[in-house]
């Protein structure tokens, strides 16, 4: 049994409130409207690597939201202007030094933004919170493939199955047999690439390979990459964003592919969210959106060594 006391210090509790205020200021100065969307919904994401908490209901099952993305896109499809939200999100099983199954996310959408614009604004927010008079982080922009070339000295697009297996073996990945190619790529990225990112820099990684597009649109000129980006501070992943996919047909095909991957990996079936698809059929305006892990941002701002130090009560004694 853990202690009843909070895992956060009084100093960090006050700092958390202060940083929340600054995030709200950031958006109000830019005329972005704060919204709230439901945390308990009838549908959830089909993404194979994200596990939702399901909750029993009198009539039917519901899910705690893993991010407010779908509901916010439904607002945009109905004519909402630029919007942001600061809310709790829930992901079952994600528990560690940098993870808590219940966490706080900052998510926002900008109408008509390009990849450069949304990346730039994300970096501005992070810099606003993290840079102080005695801490100046440098900022770098690099494509997913350039990182492979820089760190592993090979192109991501030239990776053979043999090379992938060799990299996994060299870095002591157990259980090779039960693992798919996509999972091995995740292993290589998180064990070879991420640890090599400059610890004193904010690194924007963009143009993820098309297989990892998630909800981003593909680049119009080069269909092998998606207009998806992530922001790292040192090796810590802080943000994930897209120039959003708006076409409902492509969206449906991606959801169906997720469902197939779930089946292949013996994961539970997840129904496709028709509310989102119908909103896209009605018309999702061209937009870009991004999610930032608020607790991690706070960890960096307060130089905390574990996420629990910036949360009132962490998973272990919530």
């Amino acid at each position, binding site marked *: 049994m853990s202690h009843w006391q909070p895992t956060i210090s009084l100093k960090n509790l006050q700092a958390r409130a202060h940083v929340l205020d600054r995030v709200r200021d950031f958006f109000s100065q830019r005329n972005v409207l704060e919204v709230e969307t439901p945390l308990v919904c009838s549908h959830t994401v089909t*993404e194979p*690597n*994200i596990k939702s908490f399901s909750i029993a209901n009198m009539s039917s099952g519901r899910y705690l939201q893993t991010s407010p993305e779908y509901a916010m896109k439904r607002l945009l499809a109905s004519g909402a202007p630029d919007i942001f939200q600061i809310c709790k999100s829930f992901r079952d*099983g*994600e*528990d*560690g*030094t*940098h*993870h808590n199954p219940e966490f706080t996310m900052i998510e926002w959408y900008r109408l008509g933004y390009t990849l450069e614009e949304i990346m730039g604004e994300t970096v501005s927010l992070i810099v606003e919170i993290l840079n102080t008079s005695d801490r100046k982080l440098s900022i770098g922009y690099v494509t997913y493939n350039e990182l492979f070339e820089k760190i592993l000295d090979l192109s991501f697009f030239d990776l053979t199955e043999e090379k992938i297996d060799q990299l996994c073996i060299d*870095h*002591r*990945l*157990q*259980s090779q047999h*039960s*693992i798919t190619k*996509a*999972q091995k790529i*995740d*292993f290589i*990225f*998180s*064990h070879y690439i*991420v640890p090599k990112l400059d610890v004193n820099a904010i690194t924007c990684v963009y143009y993820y390979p098309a297989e*990892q597009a*998630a909800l981003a649109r593909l680049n119009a000129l080069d269909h092998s990459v998606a207009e998806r980006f*992530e922001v790292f501070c040192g090796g810590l*992943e802080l943000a*994930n964003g897209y120039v959003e996919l708006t076409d409902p047909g492509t969206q449906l095909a991606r959801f169906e592919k997720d469902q197939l991957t779930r089946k292949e990996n013996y994961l539970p079936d997840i129904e496709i969210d028709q509310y989102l698809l119908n909103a896209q059929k009605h018309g999702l305006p061209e937009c870009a959106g991004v999610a930032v892990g608020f607790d991690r941002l706070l960890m960096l701002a307060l130089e905390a060594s574990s996420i629990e130090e910036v949360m009132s009560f962490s998973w272990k004694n919530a």
Partner: protein
Amino acid sequence: MASYSTNEFRSGLKIMIDGDPYTIVENEFVKPGKGQAFNRVKIRNLKTGRVVDRTFKSGDSVEGADVMEVDMQYLYSDGEQWHFMDQTSFEQHAADATAVGEASNWLKDQDICQVTLYNGAPLSVSAPNFVELKITQSDPGVKGDTAQGATKPATLETGATVKVPLFVEEGEVIKIDTRTGEYVSRVKEA
């Protein structure tokens, strides 16, 4: 033996890897937001003491190792085997020189130490952190040698040799930290 899922990983858990028993020293959860989750662990081989890194796909299961740490009383050594008795079951176990290792320097009859059993047989022995042993041989300190921190060798009743301050004499009982093998203090005999 039961198997453990990665979400049960914690330091101290005993698992089998490549046919050897290991204990988990450190467990780190690693997951790209949109990607596969992994458990990156540091594990110590219980036979060799070596610490290595391994990464598991989260959700995988690993066979547990039949390893137990039991407090036992040291009885005697016949030269080849060291004999111990389980304090609760009174069962006796014999450990060879490999299992006893460094601990043989500090074991005195009746002392309680921790014996790690693997598949029911002693795999390693840890002496108590502090032991009290009698000096069986040590030359007198040279008169006039008053340099601070000067030491001389002393042979203990177990046969081990430790460095002691010059004022400590043969026949005295001293306290030793077995983790460093260093002299701590003199012990006044009751």
